[in-house]
């Protein structure tokens, strides 16, 4: 009986210690998780800002004047041809720059 009591007491103390260490580990892990989540959130926010900046810089209202300044123009209907027509021209040798 005494042996049983001592064993039980030992088990209780061991369990308490185990619980304490588990609790401690869990808190440490939670702190790490929170830190990593905060980092991920910061990175997501940074990515969102970068995407917004890229979209702002690539907006057609900004690109168009820059493109026109480089001598570019919207596609004209004569510039659109089917692949078959190009092949025919190459075969007949009638491909001439326009």
């Amino acid at each position: 009986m005494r042996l049983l009591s001592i064993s039980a007491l030992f088990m209780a103390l061991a369990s308490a210690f185990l619980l304490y260490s588990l609790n401690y580990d869990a808190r440490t892990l939670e702190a790490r998780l929170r830190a990593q989540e905060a980092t991920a959130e910061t990175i997501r926010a940074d990515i969102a800002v970068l995407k917004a900046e890229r979209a702002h810089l690539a907006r057609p209202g900004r690109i168009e004047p820059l493109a026109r300044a480089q001598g570019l123009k919207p596609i004209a209907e004569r510039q659109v041809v089917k692949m078959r027509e190009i092949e025919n021209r190459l075969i007949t040798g009638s491909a001439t720059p326009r």
Partner: protein
Amino acid sequence: MSQYRRPVIISPGLPQRRNRAPWQRHGRAHTRDMRALTVSLSVLAMSLAIAGQLVHLALAGQTSMTTTLSHPIANSFARPDIVDRHGRLLATDVAMPSLFADPSRVVDPNVVVEKLSELLPGLDREALRRKLSDRGRRFVWVQRGVSPAMAQQIHNLGLPGLSFKQELKRAYPAGRLAGHVLGSVNIDNKGLSGIEQHIDAVVGADPVLGAQRSRKAPVQLSLDVGVQHALDDELARALRRYQATAAAGVVMDVNSGEVIAAASIPGVDPMQPAQHQETRRRDRVAGGSYELGSIFKAFTVAMALEAGLVTVNTKLDVTKPLVEGRHTIRDGHGGGRPLSVAEVFTHSSNVGAGLLALAAGPKRQKLFLDNFRLLTPIKTEAGRVAAPQLPEQWQRIEQITIAYGHGMAVSPLQFAAAYSALVNGGSYVAPTFLRRVAGESVPRQRVLSHATSRKMRTLMRLNVTDRAGTGGRADVPGYRVGGKTGTAEVASVGGYKKKTVISSFSAAFPMDEPRYVVLVSVFEPKGNRNSGGAITASRNAAPTTGRVIRRIAPLLNVMPAGTVTALSAPR
């Protein structure tokens, strides 16, 4: 104390007393032993319970814990991004610092107000001074959504009691582009109008305490940023070119009802919600209904053809004015001879259209227009579309005027949706600002026969290619444009203003198998050098539509063709 001890009787046949089990004992020893047993069993039970819980924890792993609050505590809302049909960003949330103060820690409110006013000129100084002087408060907003650079400057002032909190702020990287469609949000990032309001109502904006971005998938619109810009740009050019007060345009996919572009100039900046309230910046595509003039003749002719009242070759006597009561309807360009139905369309004869409407009768006319959803209000994801304005009575004079687009008013968006049904084979498809998923079945309702739709396409193309047609300036080589002009006088007290008009051109392309409808309206254009002194749609709205189509057709993968094919002569 008595030293008396009970005699121990040793008997070889009986077990010794100390070796007995507790429940076999009697007296004090029995009580003591029973207590020890109880304590031992209790300790054992507790140990087993702890061990069991440990085993349970080890086997069950980490449990998720959720804390639910009875009321959401939030200072802003996280919203999903808005992207165009190709995934290009139109609206997003970015974290920005917001300035707040703790009045109990502010040393001198006057100094704080003076120094902050130098950096933030728009600050309401009196209101801030009042708030900072209330020492009972621990938190007051000073300025929400300041730029990081400004936040640094404020921080450098070193004023105690001021601090920053990261908040989500809506940003629109494309600026004014599609401002009317996108709508706006309030200071708490809640949707006020347009697609932003649709997100709150349908998709959901999540209340957040800090600057946590939404995890929801982006809302994909049917708009194409490239097409939207081209439409915006050409409308702004038309505004200057024809000295107009406003211009509006819409590009719609005739088969899916998707709005590819919708612009109203002057536009609005989604970052400034107050602009939505300015009269001159109102959305003329969906936010107002207008008498659109002769572009309505397309419905009148389609109605007469569908009912079998006439063929495109039937001659109508349009040589005399149409007199109804005290009203006389005349043609501006009749030619002084009977016109075929095709010519009524291409010459834009008011008398001819009136005769067709009278032949159809009021019941048929109303039913026909109602089938095309021109008489009842419609709604899109961007909000309510301005309701049609209809006459109180539908007498003969109303029949005649509605036949050529006066006497009833609809929004350009509602008109474009109906016009799509005229050219897409005869099926009405409700307009939408959300991109349809590939393979998604599109709800459609047949409102016109294939044969009549084909005839209408031929007439519209004829109106652009024929020398006598009014839409010649809308033609774009290769893209088979067809359409109808409309110049509507603007109603005022006591009648119509002769020199104040809304000029419109409703077009579709490519006309052998239409994919897109383009509707352009120019409000109150002036006759000047650019329009040959005229204010009619053929001189302003038609060429603007042509310029729009020239730019957007390659973006929409419409292949140009050298010759017009698949357009047989009308019968």
